[in-house]
């Protein structure tokens, strides 16, 4: 591409079978059409979306965005994408740490890895030098990989790797980045293992060229001002001070705390296991992704990360554990072995419901290690519950386990879980922002009214956020208005926020097209039956009845109309063409 502001104009392709390294220079029109990150990765995944996860030709895609590596706040994130071994649907994870920034500084908008190495290997990138190196780290934990590579890596390089869970075939396998960050959901680590790829190391010495630095600085100040004014981000109870664990008290007080495998929604011991309890016990320090001023990660004095809210909740309320040390241990073991704590917690809860067995410190740790050794539990609750003939105990959507937000306490969340293109996931539409956190304004969480269009618009916005790339959390304070200014300042491309939203619609629709090609339809856009038949925990003036199935289906039908899908949730040729996705 001619102009090199924001984007580098180069995508790096590595074939692990042939060891061939090639460069692609996408047409500028492709950048405009898909922006970067999740959008561009989706574009490149599209022709391969129906390949089986074990097919060496199925690519792993790692993409940066036009804002990556710039002064735009929280722009250090990137996307890792492929087809999920857990769900069979498309799967991408917004990943933090330094990975995307270093890739960009090395000169690449994205990296596409295909093929299969005949022996375990690592990929090492230093600007234009790309090496595929044999690795003797097979079976090593993530910490062992980071420690081993630390001595040989250049200062500031980023390392991503898989742990033993992936190598042993777990469909919950994650990819760990820079020790404390994880691309957790959907089992993408298993695809790395299938390609015999143990780690990726990237270091760049370049920079991201910015078209108008003054304008970028101006909008950066606007965003700083907005985040400073946000209780949930920078407030004294906000993520910056406490980590996302500050949601723990709130979710319990709102009767949205999934307890005993979603059989209840309040956790009597919540006040002993909240973020304040972690802060008191494990004096922590702030940590975060490249280019972020919020720094929502918390690291305990002994170097282990304080769990994110979802892991805090799933390793306590969901599985009946009251031991705070065990939560930290379980979370850390998941990181070491390379497994997604959300799906792990959910699978343990499913196992507890089926067997009636309570966890002890020992049995819990045993279960985690067995999961990472390729045990049945290591394939997630959907697989495990079906194996036991108890499919109703899997709290998952499209096979992906639900995170720690009970949908009976927020109906937009119910709809968002059901329609999410990557399965049981709260991040696609992130209705938590308005149904609980009151941003941009509060909506009635016990109503489906208006939610279809709200969810659709939010999915489009978040598709753009993941493509620019920026962090979802910043949008609890700033809006697309400020980030559009940042995008224009960086790239020089004149565009409005609403135009970007249309691009978000394209990115999302492309994902529905890929899922439809893999056979997903309305019957997959659904919630576990429990939510329609069993109430949550009422009290404190709040009633939590089961969701009304008729209302849910009406809201879903509205969503299909708003999203312009047919009544079976499938893309239509007319909209596919309008969005330019038919080529």
């Amino acid at each position: 591409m001619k102009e090199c502001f924001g984007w580098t104009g180069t995508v790096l392709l590595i074939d692990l079978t042939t060891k061939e390294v090639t460069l692609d220079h996408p047409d500028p029109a492709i950048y405009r059409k898909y922006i970067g990150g999740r959008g561009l990765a989706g574009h490149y995944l599209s022709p391969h979306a129906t390949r089986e996860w074990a097919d060496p030709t199925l690519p792993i895609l790692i993409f940066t965005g036009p804002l990556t590596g710039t002064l735009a706040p929280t722009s250090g994130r990137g996307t890792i994408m492929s087809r999920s071994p857990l769900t069979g649907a498309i799967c991408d994870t917004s990943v933090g740490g330094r990975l995307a920034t270093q890739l960009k500084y090395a000169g690449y908008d994205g990296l596409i890895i295909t093929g299969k190495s005949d022996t375990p290997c690592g990929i090492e990138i230093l600007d234009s030098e790309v090496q595929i190196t044999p690795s003797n780290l097979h079976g090593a934990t993530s910490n062992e990989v980071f420690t081993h590579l630390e001595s040989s890596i250049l200062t500031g390089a980023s390392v991503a790797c898989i742990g033993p869970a992936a190598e042993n075939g777990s469909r919950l396998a994650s990819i760990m980045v820079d020790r404390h960050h994880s691309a957790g959901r959907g089992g993408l680590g298993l695809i790395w293992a299938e390609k015999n790829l143990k780690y990726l190391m990237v270091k760049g010495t370049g920079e991201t060229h910015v078209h108008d630095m003054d304008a970028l600085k101006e909008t950066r100040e606007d965003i700083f001002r907005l985040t400073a004014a946000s209780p949930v981000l920078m407030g004294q109870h906000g993520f910056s001070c406490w980590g996302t664990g500050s949601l723990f008290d709130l979710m319990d007080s709102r009767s949205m705390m999934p307890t005993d495998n979603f059989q209840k929604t309040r956790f009597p011991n919540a006040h002993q296991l909240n973020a304040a309890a972690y802060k008191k016990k494990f004096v922590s320090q702030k940590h975060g992704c490249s280019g972020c001023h919020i720094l929502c990660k918390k690291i305990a004095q002994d170097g282990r990360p304080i769990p994110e809210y979802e892991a805090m909740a799933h390793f306590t309320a969901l599985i009946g554990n009251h031991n705070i040390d065990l939560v930290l241990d379980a979370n850390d073991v998941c990181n070491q072995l390379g497994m997604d704590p959300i799906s792990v917690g959910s699978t343990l809860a499913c196992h507890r419901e089926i067997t009636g067995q309570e966890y002890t410190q020992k049995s819990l740790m045993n279960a985690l290690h067995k999961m990472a050794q390729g045990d049945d539990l290591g394939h997630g609750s959907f697989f495990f519950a079906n194996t036991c003939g108890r499919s109703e105990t899997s709290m998952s959507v499209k096979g992906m386990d639900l995170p720690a937000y009970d949908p009976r306490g927020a109906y937009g969340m119910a709809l968002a879980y059901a329609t999410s293109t990557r399965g049981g996931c709260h991040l696609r539409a992130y209705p938590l922002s308005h149904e609980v956190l009151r941003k941009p304004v509060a909506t009635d969480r016990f109503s489906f009214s208006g939610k279809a269009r709200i969810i659709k618009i939010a999915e489009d916005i978040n598709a753009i956020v993941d493509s620019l790339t920026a962090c979802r959390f910043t949008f609890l304070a700033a809006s697309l208005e400020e980030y559009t200014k940042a995008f224009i300042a960086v790239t020089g491309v004149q565009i409005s926020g609403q135009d970007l939203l249309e691009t978000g619609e394209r990115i999302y629709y492309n994902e529905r097209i890929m899922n439809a090609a893999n056979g997903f339809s309305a019957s997959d856009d659904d919630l576990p039956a429990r939510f329609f038949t069993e109430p949550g925990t009422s009290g404190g003036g709040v009633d939590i009845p089961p969701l009304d199935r008729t209302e849910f289906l009406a809201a879903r039908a509205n969503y299909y109309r708003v999203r312009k899908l047919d009544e079976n949730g499938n893309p239509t040729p007319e909209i596919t063409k309008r969005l330019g996705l038919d080529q």
Partner: protein
Amino acid sequence: MKRLCDKYATKLVTQGLAAPNDPIIGGLDAELVWNRPDPRIEEFTKLFDVLSINSLVFSKPAEPYATILDFLAGRTKSAIRPEDTETRTFLHDIPICREFTASAMEVNLKKRKAVIIPGEGIISCGTVSPEQGFVFYSSTIFACFVLFFSDYLNKLRNKTLDDEYREIFQRVVKNLPQPHTTLPQQVSGPFTDEDTVLAAMAESGRHVVGYGLVDSFFGNISYKLNGTVYISQTGSSLEELEGCIDPCPMDGSATTGLTASSELSAHEDVYRRSNYRCILHGHPKFSVIMSMYCDKQDCPNRGKCHIKCTECRTVEGIPIVPGEVGTGPTGLCNTLPPAIASSGSAIVHGHGLFTAGLNDFNKAFERLLDIENQCRKHYFNMVKSYE
């Protein structure tokens, strides 16, 4: 959706921001609904096709706001850029759209949250609720009001006032609502249980809005009981506080304040430094206008007064402090607490007025109203003195 459209249409009228039966509010889920029929709806409907929005708010502002907006728009090329805190933080600027067509409105709404159409009204939209449109509409009116009166005083002082401004100013002043002079009856404290605290806060919130001392959505209110600060939630409407108050223990044992007002830190710090039990915060217009007025013409901090002012400024004896919303390094959480703890009230530059009370909201409310009335009087005395 229809219920929400009706609700915010009514609110615009009851808060004196629009004339009865004037607001047009549309909401879209799978179907588009409007609060009332109107021939202009045909044009507005087109906006839903081209913008990713779920609601739209339109109305001609009530007087004197319509006159103010049209006047400012007449003197501005493409966008008004007020300098009060709400605009600096949330609106950035307010575009002017000179054509009443969907395509012209679309261009501006793609860029900004609210748009002025001279002679017609204000249009704004939301992506999750008509409440967003309502908030932006009301913020636009507030910002333009403050700008209009601030500019007038500055021009008068600098002898650059023209006849047109003078004439419009007279017209606007004639249409200003009379200041309130009597106080509302509010429950007496100190309060000893949570239920009474919550009820007293809700009652006081309703009065602050009813007296026009804040435009609904903004402002906050708190009460301290047994080491816990009860505070209105972020973005809550002060006249509808039931269910929107968070208990925040001051010992840091819980993070239930995650959805609390962004001023929680400042409130807590006031309580730590004083014996006050309650705090009221509103955005009374003349207090804000006077806080932005400074005769130190050659000050090196000019243009950055809201964060950099180092002068000990007062208006009618009330301290004026700099500070931005929230907890950033230049946040008002650093400047406000000492000021309010020592005098019971303080104004944040370009932002609003905070007052405290020892037992209940009676004294805090009295201070709020009294200071606003004094600022208003002071403003017009200054105008007189320069004439």
